[in-house]
């Protein structure tokens, strides 16, 4: 009961934190039809700075970390990515009015990782003073790329099967074979992962402490709040797209983040017992799983699964998945960690 009360308080308090408050503020302005807009370039720059900050800190910490500790969580991150995509495909395909490729693309996006949600979770842990390994950010690509690659491969298999079922005479145009390496390279070259990897490398190989302390760390909080406003506006605008597709996507988008987070939390707890993975680390792993990509995932999936309807997968992720993950996921898994560990 105490836990419930404290979760309730935390949840209400959460509305007043810059993260959630600004997100809802952005949604509210968009709902009121405000013409408030923040230029693309600003948005891209902010994402770059946030990921550099996360990467730098991770890199600096990896220097002193025992890398063997990273192996088990990294393996779990890959496993979670696979479970989310398969689970999502199976669950969504059973629902009425959902095409298999759309189901797979949506599951792929929910398996991929949102940099902004992850940043918000780190900030929340800093605020409440829960310790975590900064190298958890290095787990990002393991889950992200696994989910995207698997989704694209599964979608390709489905389209091939449909072609056969429709007994199309061997089409004159050959469908391009899937090139897994190309998808991985493309994901790594995306702006989000590039910034994170650059940060990790600079943190690992150079001594960026002065610039980290004087610039990246202090601006993190403010920049994140601006990003939240932009995401709030985007979430509201994409909602109209989501209305054009089956309503089951909305149901999935509400349940999936929390369920994915819970699965990852379980794996994190195993790592906690086996290798001493910190409770804060477990929370961050849960948030990696709960979040759904909103920057780098959509274009990769669009290019890889062109027959999938972007309104379905982006709508469910940006409009519902991300706000749910930030508003409920982050406080929920933090509280859970306090209770369990």
């Amino acid at each position, binding site marked *: 009961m105490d836990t419930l009360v404290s979760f309730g308080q935390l949840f209400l308090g959460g509305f007043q934190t810059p993260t959630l408050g600004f997100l809802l503020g952005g949604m509210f302005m968009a709902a009121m039809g405000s013409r408030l807009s923040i230029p693309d370039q600003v948005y891209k720059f902010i994402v770059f700075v946030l990921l550099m900050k996360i990467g730098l800190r991770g890199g600096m910490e990896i220097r002193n970390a025992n890398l063997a500790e990273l192996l088990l969580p990294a393996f779990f991150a890959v496993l979670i990515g696979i479970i989310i995509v398969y689970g999502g495909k199976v669950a969504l395909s059973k629902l009425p009015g959902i095409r298999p490729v759309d189901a797979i693309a949506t599951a792929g996006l929910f398996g991929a990782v949102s940099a902004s949600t992850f940043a918000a979770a780190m900030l929340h842990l800093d605020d409440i003073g829960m310790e975590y390994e900064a190298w958890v950010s290095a787990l990002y690509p393991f889950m992200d790329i696994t989910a995207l690659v698997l989704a694209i491969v599964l979608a390709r298999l489905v389209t091939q099967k449909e072609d056969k079922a429709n007994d199309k005479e061997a089409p004159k145009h050959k469908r391009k074979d899937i090139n897994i390496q190309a998808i991985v390279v493309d994901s790594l070259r995306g702006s989000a992962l590039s910034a994170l990897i650059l940060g990790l490398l600079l943190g690992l190989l150079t001594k960026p402490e002065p610039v980290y302390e004087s610039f990246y760390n202090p601006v993190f909080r403010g920049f994140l709040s601006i990003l939240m406003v932009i995401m709030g506006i985007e979430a509201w605008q994409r909602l109209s797209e989501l209305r054009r597709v089956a309503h089951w996507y909305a149901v999935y988008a509400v349940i999936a983040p929390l369920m994915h987070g819970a699965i990852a939390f379980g794996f994190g707890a195993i790592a906690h017992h086996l290798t001493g993975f910190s409770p804060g680390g477990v929370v961050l792993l849960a948030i990696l799983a709960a979040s759904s990509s909103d920057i780098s995932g959509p274009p990769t999936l*669009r290019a890889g699964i062109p027959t999938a309807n972007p309104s379905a997968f982006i709508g469910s992720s940006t409009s519902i998945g991300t706000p749910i993950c930030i508003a409920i996921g982050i406080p929920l898994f933090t509280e859970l960690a306090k209770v369990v560990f």
Partner: protein
Amino acid sequence: MKHKATLLSIMTEKVFEENILEVLEQEGAKGYTIFEGGGNGSFHLHPAQHASMVDEFRIVKIEVIVLSTDTANKIAKRLMEECFNEQPGIVSLSDVQIFRAQKF
């Protein structure tokens, strides 16, 4: 001084641009112009104005002028078969008159 030529206009999403440019280059197009913009399509809205989180979904129009009608038809056919069998896209051909034929 004026020469007859064919203008190919190709509309698609930015994320699919690369494959198309590949075809154009293979078919010997000497140059092309890319315009970015917004619009509305059967799949979803492509807002041109507000900060869109994913700018790869912007609509692009690629224009290329070729002298030979055969080349234009061949490019159009290849695009329809190789790119737009599952990706969204529109290809149109129009007759135009150009100067400086050596440029095309």
